[in-house]
């Protein structure tokens, strides 16, 4: 199914959970934050929250800055 991930169209496995997406991307949940359709997704929902076709997902992290 298609989702929009960080602004780009992306094909992912049907009914993936957010945790599965992070694992696939090799991202650690403790160093990122996730926004799903413009609402923050609490970390304790990563395991159970299934993504749907057309979802807009933003995954952010910290980078160098002043």
């Amino acid at each position, binding site marked *: 199914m298609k989702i929009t991930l960080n602004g780009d169209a992306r094909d992912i496995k049907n009914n993936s959970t957010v945790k599965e997406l992070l694992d696939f*991307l090799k991202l650690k949940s403790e160093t990122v*934050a996730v926004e799903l359709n413009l609402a*923050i997704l*609490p970390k304790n929902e990563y395991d159970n929250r299934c993504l749907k076709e057309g979802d807009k997902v*933003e995954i*952010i992290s*910290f*980078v160098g*800055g*002043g």
Partner: protein
Amino acid sequence: MDKMLKIGKYEFKSRLFVGTGKYPTFQLMKEALEASGTDCVTVAVRRVNLTDKSKESLLDYIDPMKYKILPNTAGCYNVGEAVRTARLAREVGLSDMIKLEVIGDEKTLYPDLSGLIEATKTLVKEGFTVLPYTSDDLITALRLQDAGAACVMPLGAPIGSGLGLTNPMNIQIIISRLKVPVIVDAGVGTASDVAVAMELGADGVLLNTGIALAKDPALMARAMKQACEAGRAAYLAGRITRKYFMAEPSSPKEGILR
């Protein structure tokens, strides 16, 4: 012994806040942060880079047990973007402090002051410890304090300019009138700029480029640390009054051989 710097519910031993941007390598950044003696580092919030295969991440080089993490909202040009970025930063789970930037102009990176006050009110209500990056305007600083900001961070000069404190009088006016700490943020080019800010009575200084782009970042970081301590000590010691158009000899006027 100097007292700890208190911003909101957080206490800091060092009065230097150091950014993590622009270093040639993560390793040089790590060495510079150590040399600076800081216990609070700023970071930016960005979409994770999904094409970068190196898998090296900033947080591999910053120990959150050693440094308090201060995420910023750099690059945000309106209240909505800044608030959204702040919420995401907090959700990472390392800090509820936010260095709030609402930028009003791309060329100077001067803050949008009305937007900044509005965003401060919103985030304070949501329980954030808000550290707003502001201009050197007293009235805005007072409004930010009223809005619940944990400190105010007036700019010494435009971000990354290295010009030092271009209007020390305005900074001094802000320091003399605010109850919350005043951290001079931006514009520091070299160690003496930090010393000047601290001698004026600033509670701290935040800088990034001055260290990160120095030829030897770790050595410059050490210089900044020493300047911060020297400036603070000079402020606490109480400088002598300036005397214009006359000298005052240090040696006795009596007993001179004639």
